């Protein structure tokens, strides 16, 4: 496993080995303790602590006024959060699965996203909308989607997707403190262990992963900053979420010295890190789990050609989910695993 090259402990805090679920819970715990304005709610979020247990124990610790269950109504969860944001709270709401965010889309795209602009800064929606995304758990078409592109396309929203416990906690804290509305996508296949796409192999726990050493207290991973998770010279892989681990695996299996960039913040993004890398390597592969066409990869590709065209030595490739609903039984034919990413790396190197 490749070690991240950014410092994982920016401070002197004691660390604990955490899963992504524990890291997310720790972020919420830290923020609820620090800031009275932080409240957490959503379907099954209160007493039970969420279907993925990300809010477990928060109601017992902070009371029902600050952590509670909601009706099964995503537009209401987000709509009330916007009103609370206008009041001055910093709500963190959970959509049980990203596949169920669509009823809340109007409140996000038309309201949260534009409130600051349309009121010339009088009212804002400093809300964080957490949701598990992505597949790899045999969830079928309604528990596997990666809808980031419908958010990255909306001006006024920030979209974030961590791929390890350290980043999950630091980015979630940064999102909660951010005065803009943040869509916080949590790749559910990574909740309890890293996943490189080799579904046929035994599940790996987070315990042995360097990014599972998480400071116990408060820290931020800044928004709009990408991470170079594997420095390399031959080709740049731009990716985020579960496919970061897939890309690392593909690099090691093909022996290609890829520079793997984890975007972390999908939009607004850290353009400099991408551009500097592609200008250095001259080659680029873009990987995401979401459907290919009109996806975020298309925007990334456009940015690469706009800013790196004269440095490119090969056509840029995209590896993504096929343009079909996420299948159930055929999950592994759909998922952009290390085989497909590795083949793209080889093609780009041979071009």
């Amino acid at each position, binding site marked *: 496993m490749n070690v991240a090259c950014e410092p994982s402990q920016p401070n002197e805090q004691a660390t604990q080995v955490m899963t992504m679920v524990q890291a997310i819970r720790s972020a919420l715990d830290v923020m609820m303790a620090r800031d009275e304005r932080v409240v957490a709610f959503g379907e099954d979020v209160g007493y039970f602590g969420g279907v993925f247990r990300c809010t477990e124990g928060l109601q017992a610790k902070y009371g029902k006024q600050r952590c509670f269950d909601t009706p099964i109504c995503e537009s209401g969860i987000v709509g009330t959060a916007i*009103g609370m944001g206008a009041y001055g709270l910093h709500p963190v709401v959970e959509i049980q699965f990203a596949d169920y965010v669509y009823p809340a889309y109007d409140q996000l795209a038309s309201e949260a996203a534009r409130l*600051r602009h349309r009121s*010339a800064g*009088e*009212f804002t929606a400093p809300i964080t909308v957490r949701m598990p995304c992505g597949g790899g758990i045999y969830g079928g078409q309604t528990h596997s989607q990666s809808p980031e592109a419908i958010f990255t396309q909306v001006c006024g929203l920030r979209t974030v997707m961590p791929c390890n416990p350290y980043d999950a906690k630091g980015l979630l804290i940064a999102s909660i403190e951010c005065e803009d509305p943040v869509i916080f996508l949590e790749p559910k296949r990574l909740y309890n262990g890293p996943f490189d796409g080799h579904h046929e192999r035994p599940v790996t726990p987070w315990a042995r992963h360097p990014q599972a050493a998480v400071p116990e207290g408060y820290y931020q991973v800044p928004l709009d900053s990408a991470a170079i998770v594997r420095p390399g010279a031959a080709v740049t892989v731009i990716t985020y979420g579960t496919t970061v681990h897939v890309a690392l695996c593909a690099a090691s299996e093909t022996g290609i010295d890829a520079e793997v960039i984890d975007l972390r913040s999908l939009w607004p993004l850290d353009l400099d890190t991408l551009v500097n890398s592609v200008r250095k390597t001259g080659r680029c592969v873009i990987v995401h789990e979401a459907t290919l066409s009109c996806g975020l990869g298309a925007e990334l590709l456009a940015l690469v050609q706009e800013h790196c065209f004269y440095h490119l030595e090969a056509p840029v490739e995209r590896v993504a989910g096929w343009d079909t609903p996420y299948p159930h039984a055929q999950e592994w034919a759909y998922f952009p695993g290390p085989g497909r990413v590795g083949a793209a790396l080889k093609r780009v190197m041979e071009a």
Partner: protein
Amino acid sequence: MNPHEPLRLHVPEPTGRPGCQTDFSYLRAAPAGHARKPALDVDPKATAGLAVGMVRVLDEQGNAQGPWAPSIAPGILHAGLKAMLKTRLFDARMLTAQRQKKMSFYMQCLGEEAVACAHTLALNADDMCFPTYRQQGILITRQMPLFEMICQLFSNARDPLKGRQLPVMYSNKAKGFFSLSGNLGTQFVQGVGWAMASAIRGDNRIASAWIGDGFTAETDFHTALTFAHVYRAPVILNVVNNQWAISSFQHIAGGEATTFAGRGVGSGIASLRVDGNDFLAVYAVSQWAAERARHNYGPTLIEWVTYRAGPHSTSDDPSKYRPADDWGRFPLGDPIARLKQHLINLGQWDEARHEALAVELEQEIIAATKAAEQHGTLGDGSIASAATIFEDVYKDMPAHLRRQRQQMGA
């Protein structure tokens, strides 16, 4: 052989159409003074009768009747009359300004002034309103400077919203007036959220959320009712039933076999249907609902029965879909005339004072319009610089917007 008639779709129709007078008996307008006034901690189920009846205080002669007649200082009645008249005169002036192309668009609230003005007077100044575009009466009652309102309408250099919003889509945090959205209905849920936040923080401010009869058909309406009920949110849920949603009669929104207040009872919310053109009834019911909210008894849904006397907006022509004399025949009358008559009956008002007030308000509006015009109108291009559209998209401008602003060359 099929023993039944073939199935057929029922598409509701108003009784009146151009050239055919409306039969207003569908309103079931009860006489003044008949509706009972329950205790503040009433069981929401026990409001079922009030949700299909109609709370009315002012009778045909302009006298206050029944248990809802508020003990109200003459000062408040005068303030209410002034706010309603100012709202009406302001609307009329702004319509003219729109015709003169000083603004792109306008929406008046002719005929429904009592709803916003009396309600606002029954609230505290720091209670938060989540309005629709037809509650300019809130801003006028809370005395937003007309100059600022008109600059917004003119989208000029002093528009507080920097030309970003259509005319009438005001925002005024200091006056407890939430930024208007063009996606109507969304604010109803947000108002509930604001009220929940106030409760979470142990505050004592309440929220007042607004929606039109037409938009009660949106899921946001039902969502707001569910959340308000579940969390007993300190919010007043106002439905302004002005009979029309652009060209669609209120029965198309679902008002035919029930009332809009009736939906509240089904959701576990104390609900009342009220004569919205009766200043005293609006004031008394608003005060009751506000007290309930402040006592942690939770939300109240109020259907204000009124009439949209003007076109939907400056882009609409109601002569195409409803009788021309409809407002004149509307059984609940004109809210300004009714309060005026009541004040005259009390010996607190007369024609001369009314005339003088109208002249004074006209002068104020004309002066404010002139002052605003000094800073330009949409037509003459004195607007906020184009570069400002990149501001406030995010709190801090991200790199891609700085690049785009440069590309625009503004």
